[in-house]
């Protein structure tokens, strides 16, 4: 089929030109990732080898065991931070996905007063820069008495306008006739939300899950500004202080291990869900 070159089904010689054209960039973008993975498994003499090496030769788990030992000596064990992070991540994701899909259903399929306005507000809020309002946010958290409360990790990250926008775009694609048929059969809104909408928008939910996960897992602001109790802080915060405070020789190895631990969950989750993400993105356009 001449002319149709987007999304080819088979390999042609013409594609080689494109591959050669973008390969340098792909390598430039990919090398640091390869480096993170290699660096974490380097034994001490390779971390400080001269000239410095890029790839690991004798891979070892030394850095990871050192990291475990170090934290168990420092009062609050690593497992405590990991526990905090897991609890916070799971609750935030659950809550965020529930509220986001519910509102997406309302915005896309229920005609109520204020719907247009809310859609507009959310569209504007996509451009919201959360670091810009850190101070007022801190004041709000203070006023609500949430300082040192686990909800200070969770609630500020639950409402994510981009996620709502993407899910809403996807819910809009569910045919109205299907919903009408269900209503005729006596289904309530809740039935429709659970039995019709949710099964159909799984790709969008997966995408929202990735976005929320990335935001929660790497978030340091809540730990550093809303918590004074160290035992309530998250793994990300701990890893960060460890990396910044330890410029010692042993610290380098631990930092390398920490960087891999923080990066890997993001990558794995994305690899698992990437098909669904691409499916959602087809509807991501702003009209």
């Amino acid at each position, binding site marked *: 089929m001449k002319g149709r070159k987007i999304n080819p089904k088979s390999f042609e010689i013409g594609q080689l030109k494109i591959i050669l054209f973008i390969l340098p960039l792909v390598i430039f*973008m990919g090398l640091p990732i390869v480096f993170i993975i290699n660096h974490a498994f380097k034994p001490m003499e390779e971390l400080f080898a*001269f000239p410095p090496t890029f790839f690991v030769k004798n891979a070892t788990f030394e850095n990871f065991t050192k990291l475990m030992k170090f934290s168990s000596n420092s009062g609050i064990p690593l497992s405590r931070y990991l526990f905090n992070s897991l609890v916070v991540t799971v609750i935030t994701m659950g809550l965020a996905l529930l509220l986001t899909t519910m509102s997406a259903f309302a915005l896309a399929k*229920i005609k109520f007063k204020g719907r247009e306005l809310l859609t507009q507000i959310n569209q504007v809020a996509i451009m919201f820069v959360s670091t810009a309002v850190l*101070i*007022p946010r801190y*004041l709000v958290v203070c006023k609500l008495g949430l300082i040192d409360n686990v909800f200070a990790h969770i609630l500020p990250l639950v409402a994510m306008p981009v996620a709502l926008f993407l899910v809403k775009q996807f819910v809009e694609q569910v045919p109205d006739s299907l919903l009408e048929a269900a209503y005729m059969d006596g289904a309530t809104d809740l039935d429709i939300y659970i039995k019709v909408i949710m099964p159909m928008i799984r790709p969008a939910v997966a995408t929202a899950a990735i976005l929320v996960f990335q935001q929660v897992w790497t978030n340091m602001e809540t730990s550093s500004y809303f918590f004074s109790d160290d035992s309530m802080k998250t793994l990300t915060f701990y890893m960060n202080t460890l990396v910044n405070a330890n410029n010692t020789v042993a610290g380098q190895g631990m930092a390398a291990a920490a960087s891999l631990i923080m990066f890997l969950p993001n990558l794995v989750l994305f690899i698992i869900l990437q098909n669904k993400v691409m499916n959602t*993105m087809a509807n991501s356009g702003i009209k």
Partner: protein
Amino acid sequence: METQEKTVCGTKTKAKRRMNKISRRENNWRGWLFIGPYALIFTIFILVPVILAVILSFTNFNAIEFPSFVGFLNYITILTNDAEFMKYVLPNTIIYAVVVGIGGYVLSFILAWALCNLTKPVRTIFALILYSPSMTTGVAMTVLWKVIFSGDQFGLLNSWLMELKVITEPVLWLTDARYLLVIVIVIGLWSSMGIGFLSMIAGILNTDATLYEAASIDGITNRFQEMVYITIPQMKPQMLFAAVMAIVGAFQNGMISSMLVGNPSPGYASQLLVNHIEDYGFLRYEMGYAAAISVVLLLIVQLFSKGANTLLTEKNPYGLAKAPKSAKRSVERGDDK
């Protein structure tokens, strides 16, 4: 017979109309029931903070005493009396936003378009590699780039450049004000293939196949013409979404500088607006002033997004209301692959 049927029909439509009226009234609380919880949290943690920031920006507030009203003083100070802002922060932010925002946007379109001309397995792997830097935030980013740009001969870049005989002795990349902004921009570009990039790939893949055939009959011969005349006009909604994401990313990303070299950066060389807010808010405790800078930042982002909006929707405001076909199909199938 005829009259009977008419009345039946009449009552039917009447009943339907009445039902509609009721359901319209009912709809209000049904809708709010579903959106209420989200709206509440949105209000508390996004809307109220933004409003508070606007209010605080007109005050002098040191986090201990009650804020005192000072009118437009903070804004006047930004424009006339903040040497760092005018000399470093504003130019840095503009340079960063132009290179990483616009450059990253163009780059992600070119890459997305190139990937869409490849077969699926190759495309998936390349897309994964290109997207993964945007997931590398916080700790991973700090460790990675600190090792690469380390100022002694153990730094990867120094070692490589010395081996290639470009430099004879190690360069202090992260303390030399000459290189800092460039480094931060390179890292910014590196991590800019995020969600907007994925959106563009999806947009290109969903363009209408028949149009390409028609175009080839009409005499469009090369890929470049195809891109300009067929692909871009069809994927404007995705282009706009990606543009908004690029703009937000370009102004939001102060992390890189503060993670690499701390805040304030040496000689304010890589100080961006976000860093400036943090500097005043959390290091100097001049929160009223910091709030004023925040408001300026939020306004700039809004302004640029508006600009992108008019640029990308002006020519074809209604033609794009149609959803991409394949996506619709997959929803109808309940397909989640």
